[in-house]
């Protein structure tokens, strides 16, 4: 009897754990949405920041900046990530593949602020200049392991018979991989990239001393550039009520980006699962 009670208590505890984790999620989403909705307006998307006390103002330059920096990051991370993913899946048993897998997982666990310090050392310090490029480098480094591991996992799911079919028709390994295997896994890989982008667009720490911040519009990649996250940080720690409202509006935009990307990815993976089964 005591064993049964103990068992029931355990099951109850597990169910309770789920609730305990979902409460903060609900609270965070509730506050971001309720505070953000009140603060967000068209100006937020079309204007740049104004000095404290002045009405209006927005984060248009920061939104553009985030797009530019994440774009730069993708330019670096997508080729490196996909190619190393291909290597890991094609030469799965080799010593280098094992090393790359370990390196990717290690890199994934390196704190984002440390990546920022590294990017500062190689891309800011030598030029004595914060820049969008340095920020892009930092974000790119963070995206590489995510894309590499996703690519590897998805390529391994492609049926071996497809590759064998291509090889039997006389294709070289490169041809078999790039015209048959990779295209078969492409929807999944793109999903992985979208998820990586969503995660990386929300990063603040690696940008603090690489792309820094900039109150003006700029598309010059060698200049400091604003980003949504760094702008939210600057506003959040300021003492002004107006700026706090702007910070909540920025947080709402960020969370919406993450939500939409996650839902899209979930929908896409579902479709993939249905197709493959």
């Amino acid at each position, binding site marked *: 009897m005591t064993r049964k009670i103990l068992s029931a208590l355990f099951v109850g505890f597990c169910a309770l754990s789920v609730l305990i984790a979902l409460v903060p999620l609900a609270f965070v989403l509730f506050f971001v949405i309720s505070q953000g909705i009140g603060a967000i307006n068209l100006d937020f998307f079309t204007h740049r920041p104004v000095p404290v006390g002045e009405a209006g103002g927005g984060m248009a330059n920061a939104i553009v900046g985030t797009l530019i920096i994440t774009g730069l990051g993708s330019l670096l991370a997508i080729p490196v990530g996909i190619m190393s993913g291909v290597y890991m899946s094609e030469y799965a048993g080799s010593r280098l593949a094992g090393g790359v897998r370990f*390196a990717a*997982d290690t*890199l994934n666990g390196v704190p984002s602020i440390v990546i920022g*310090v590294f990017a500062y*050392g190689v891309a800011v310090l030598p030029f004595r200049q914060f820049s969008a490029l340095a920020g892009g480098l930092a974000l790119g480094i963070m995206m590489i392991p995510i894309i590499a591991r996703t690519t590897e996992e998805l390529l391994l799911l492609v049926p071996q018979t497809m590759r064998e079919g291509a090889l039997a028709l006389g294709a070289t*390994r490169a041809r078999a991989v790039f015209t048959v295997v990779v295209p078969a896994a492409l929807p999944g890989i793109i999903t992985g990239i979208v998820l990586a982008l969503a995660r990386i667009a*929300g990063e603040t720490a690696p940008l603090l001393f690489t792309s820094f911040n900039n109150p003006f519009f700029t598309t010059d990649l060698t200049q400091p550039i604003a980003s949504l996250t760094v702008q939210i*940080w600057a506003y959040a720690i300021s003492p002004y009520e107006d700026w706090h409202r702007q*910070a909540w509006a920025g947080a709402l935009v960020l969370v919406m980006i993450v939500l939409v990307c996650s839902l899209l990815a979930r929908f896409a993976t579902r479709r993939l699962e249905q197709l493959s089964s």
Partner: protein
Amino acid sequence: MGGKARTGDLGFRLGTGVFALALVLLVVAIGYELTRQSMLSIEKFGWNFWRTTTWDPVTGDFGALPFLWGTLYSSFLALVLSTPVALGIAVFISELAPGRLRQPLVFLTELLAAIPSIVYGLWGIFVLVPVVRAMETAAPDWLRQIPLFSGPPLGVGMLAAGVILAIMIVPFTASVAREVLKSVPIAQREGAYALGATRFEAIRAALYYARTGIIGAVMLGFGRALGETMAVTMVIGNTPRISASLFAPQYTMAAVLANEFTEADTDLYLNALIEIGLVLFIITLFINGLSRLLIWSMARPAKALGVASTVPAEESAA
């Protein structure tokens, strides 16, 4: 096989291999660069850097012990708070929840991981910290006599940092633990049930079977907490001191980097900060490497052989 095809294959291997090698070299380069850039501080202070507590940029006297303490304390606190909940979630989703509920629950816990750190921080400043302050103010006097709860009720401090870190690492630990539990053969549970075990006893046996991977999952969460920056910086109070009190404002390694890096006006100051980054890198490298080894020793056989093959996984695990 023709000569041309072989050359093509070699070219393919080299072409993709270069990128793969670049990934490995990147990790090495990070370590090298951080070491190179912190040489001034390493040479001047040696081990004393990690044994002393003065942090004075004006006189150029740097001791980083309070930051190390704050990082370890806050992460450990997060570990204690999050582990039972994370394991509960993992067990609930993988063993107890009806199939229909499983996917939505996975999605929701992953959402918890997807919310950016800065958003947690914003929420921390304006929602969590006032709540913590109210709780601290309400704490009875006899409780405040205990060193763990001493000090004025500020709201910002170790407790707020630990709570927000715990919320943030729960999904990581939970998802890895779930993955590890999946690799426990079904026969293991069936055997337990056949012997008349209750649900708790069967799951306890599965958890015991998966213990290596579970420890890995918990360590992985710990590694995440060590390097978490924005949210912690916004709620911990940013005061370099060593205190056992949960109520006391303190500082972490990641937070001091976030706050002071752009203010470093001398080379020595900058080098001291980069040395903190270097040690943070080494600690997380060690923790993550160890946890990956533990997790891989459990879950890799199943994964490497593809999703459909639970039977070979069982054989290799046995």
